[in-house]
């Protein structure tokens, strides 16, 4: 990441200006050309520093209030393939391989599942279980009961 990328983060963190030429407006604010702003955004998208550009929905306002952390015990050789398949589904918001801690914790694949109710989340987890088929040795869903702290991640800008 470059120093001027931090200025770009600061300028776009709360969103793009909703005007006909938003990149030009950001460029004016930063004292750069519009082409330079577009080139930086394009590079940061390619690097993965920007995941995507578009609508960031407020899930709660849209009624998507239930989430379950589904955890899966998958053979080490299959976790890559299954992780790709789970992550590609529209209702999975995060999908990671994480270490087991045997014997206390056997699950090595995590997929966060969202829905309008716990029942909908459970149905979607069943879809994942069907997709996983014989590669899944065991799975569980950990529903969130309470937010104990949420300060948000601080950015390095």
């Amino acid at each position: 990441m470059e120093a001027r990328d931090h200025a770009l983060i600061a300028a776009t963190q709360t969103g793009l200006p909703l005007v006909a030429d938003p990149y030009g407006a950001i460029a004016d604010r930063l004292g750069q050309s519009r082409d330079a702003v577009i080139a930086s955004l394009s590079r940061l998208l390619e690097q993965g520093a920007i995941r995507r550009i578009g609508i960031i929905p407020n899930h709660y306002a849209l009624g998507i209030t239930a989430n379950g952390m589904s955890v899966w015990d998958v053979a080490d050789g299959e976790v890559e393939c299954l992780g790709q398949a789970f992550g590609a589904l529209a209702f999975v918001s995060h999908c990671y391989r994480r270490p087991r801690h045997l014997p206390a914790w056997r699950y090595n694949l995590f997929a966060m599942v969202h829905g309008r109710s716990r029942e909908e989340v459970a149905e979607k987890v069943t879809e994942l279980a069907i997709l996983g088929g014989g590669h899944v040795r065991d799975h569980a869903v950990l529903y969130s009961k309470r937010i104990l702290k949420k300060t948000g991640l601080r950015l390095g800008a």
Partner: protein
Amino acid sequence: MIALSDIERHIINGLQGGFPLSGRPFADAAATLGLDEQTLIATLSALVAKGVISRFGPLWNPEEMGGAFCLAAMAVPPERFDAVAEMVNAHAEIAHNYERDHTHNMWFVASSLDSGRIAGVFAEIEAETGLTVWPMPKEREFFVGFRVEV
């Protein structure tokens, strides 16, 4: 839950990514959606004002911005749960902490600009609580196609 018009639905379903990098990106995106530039800009502004969308723009990946993050879990005896939550939350490095319904019932994320600090925070929490902190670092992130359908 807020009621949505057909145009609002169409825009939310169609524009959760792929916003063009061009001189007139709203005009380009509107053309793809079968709308005009002014309608798209006005509808997005209204959706932001109503709180249906948090914002419109880049979704930054905090891990690419410097600093380290790590998820961890603890199995806290129910009778000590609130006291332990207080000890964990007292650390400034703890960004999120959730109660979940499992033997591993406390799940939190530590973040610090100094990547070496994460292990230190976990060690302090173990010393203060007498409980094991199970670090669950990301070993691999899979591509995520998450989008909301309304």
